[in-house]
């Protein structure tokens, strides 16, 4: 067990490699109840969401969700999050556990829209069932036609008799669902899902596999690839930064940075030899440190050692070689396209 954002969580159940493999080839079940939820209600809800986040929530349909950034006035990340549109006057944000309270404060501070903002984390537990068999396993417990929920959409319905918000979202690079429900049902839903998934080879998965899976899928982790010093442009997240809806917090700085150009960019790399470039290791060009590895480690499914790092733009081209400083020795890594892993369609 490890402490993660104030939560005691298992790093692994049967082992990171076995759990990673299960999610890529069968299914895995994650207890992600640590994730925070913030609900915004009222006629001013959309205005508030639009001001504090960089994606365009006006484009969301009812029952649709998107990935976005909660922004500072400097155009950097307070957090990254999923925004769910429940109704025209009701949005549910899923945020990182460790940031929940500061996210809430930040949103309240900018609430000039008279919206109701609720720090709703304690009202929810969340389970993520992920992998190619996730849909079939969950379908055994719910009357909701899961095929009708498109990727990054959600619906309300019962699973195992429990009222849930069932979203086709995830943090693994696989198809799957994230299910939100009242905490008193957590043990029952976990037990019923494990029972339904056992014969299909589903494994319970911990934080270790959650990290290797998201890294292989090239997804950002707050505190690693993104934080309150990085902008969406630098992090390769321009696709969630919709300048046409400006002004929003930081949009002037982001417009300026787009005109001026970047001083660093997030890249993916593969180690060419067996040594592993890990979080925090320096990136060296001509023996001089030009950046740092943000996340690095084995990619169990790809059987490579991979990572992400910030480097100056002139060293960010796919195919270029960079050097990672590993315990005083330089090791060559090749810049590759992100994501490292994409599931077969």
């Amino acid at each position, binding site marked *: 067990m490890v402490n993660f954002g104030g939560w005691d969580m298992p790093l*692994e159940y049967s082992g*990171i*490699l076995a759990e990673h493999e299960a999610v890529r080839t069968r299914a895995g079940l994650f207890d992600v109840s640590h994730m925070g939820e913030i609900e915004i209600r009222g006629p001013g809800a959309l205005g508030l969401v639009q001001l504090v986040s960089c994606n365009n929530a006006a484009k969301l349909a009812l029952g649709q969700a998107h990935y976005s950034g909660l922004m500072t006035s400097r155009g950097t990340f307070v957090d990254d999050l999923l925004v769910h549109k429940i109704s025209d006057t009701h949005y549910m944000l899923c945020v990182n556990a460790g940031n929940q309270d500061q996210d809430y404060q930040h949103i309240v501070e900018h609430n000039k829209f008279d919206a109701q903002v609720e720090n709703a984390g304690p009202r929810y537990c969340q389970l993520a069932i992920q992998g190619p068999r996730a849909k079939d396993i969950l379908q055994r417990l719910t009357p909701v036609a899961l095929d009708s929920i498109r990727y990054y959409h959600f619906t309300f319905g019962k699973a195992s008799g429990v009222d849930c918000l069932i979203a086709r979202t995830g943090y693994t690079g696989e198809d799957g669902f994230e299910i939100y429900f009242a905490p008193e049902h957590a043990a029952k839903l976990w037990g019923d899902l494990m029972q339904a998934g056992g014969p299909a080879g589903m494994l319970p998965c911990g934080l*270790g596999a959650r990290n290797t899976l998201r890294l292989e899928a090239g997804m950002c982790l707050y505190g690693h690839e993104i934080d309150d010093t990085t902008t969406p442009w630098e992090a390769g997240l321009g696709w969630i930064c919709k300048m046409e809806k400006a002004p929003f917090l930081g949009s002037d700085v982001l417009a300026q940075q787009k005109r001026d150009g970047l001083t660093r960019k997030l890249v993916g790399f593969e180690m060419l030899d067996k*040594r592993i470039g890990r979080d925090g290791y320096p990136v060296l060009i001509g023996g001089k440190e030009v950046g740092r590895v943000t996340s690095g480690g*084995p990619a169990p499914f790809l059987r490579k050692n991979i990572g992400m790092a910030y480097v100056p733009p002139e060293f960010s081209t796919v195919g270029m070689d960079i050097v990672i400083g590993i*315990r005083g020795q330089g090791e060559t890594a090749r810049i590759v396209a992100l994501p490292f892993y994409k599931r077969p369609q």
Partner: protein
Amino acid sequence: MYPKDYRYTKEHEWIKVDGANGTIGVTHYAQHELGDVVFVEMPKVGAQLKARQSFGTIESVKAVSEIFSPVAGEVIETNPALADAPELINKDPHGGAWLIKVRLADRKEASALMDAAAYEAYIAGQAKEHSA
């Protein structure tokens, strides 16, 4: 679990002394804490090790750990099986996954290390600290 004829360090290495030579590996406790091992970095044959000197690293999926020599000596052999099958460390830490063999500088040095009973008491204390 922990062979009676081995000696153990606080850093979770073991040594089995056989006359003038010693075989060195990491303990079951160490492999369990490391999780899935994916790469082992070994010293060269002929390297002179001091006691408590780092002689290599073990990389697991989640972390990298240094390995320290329990005693002084010269490396006379490294385990060739671990290059292609580092996961042996998880499966057979006290046997097939030995790391190196050394010619002992002092045959008696290892006897000052913990025996199996003392090591088991030591890791029981560590486990308590972890859960506290």
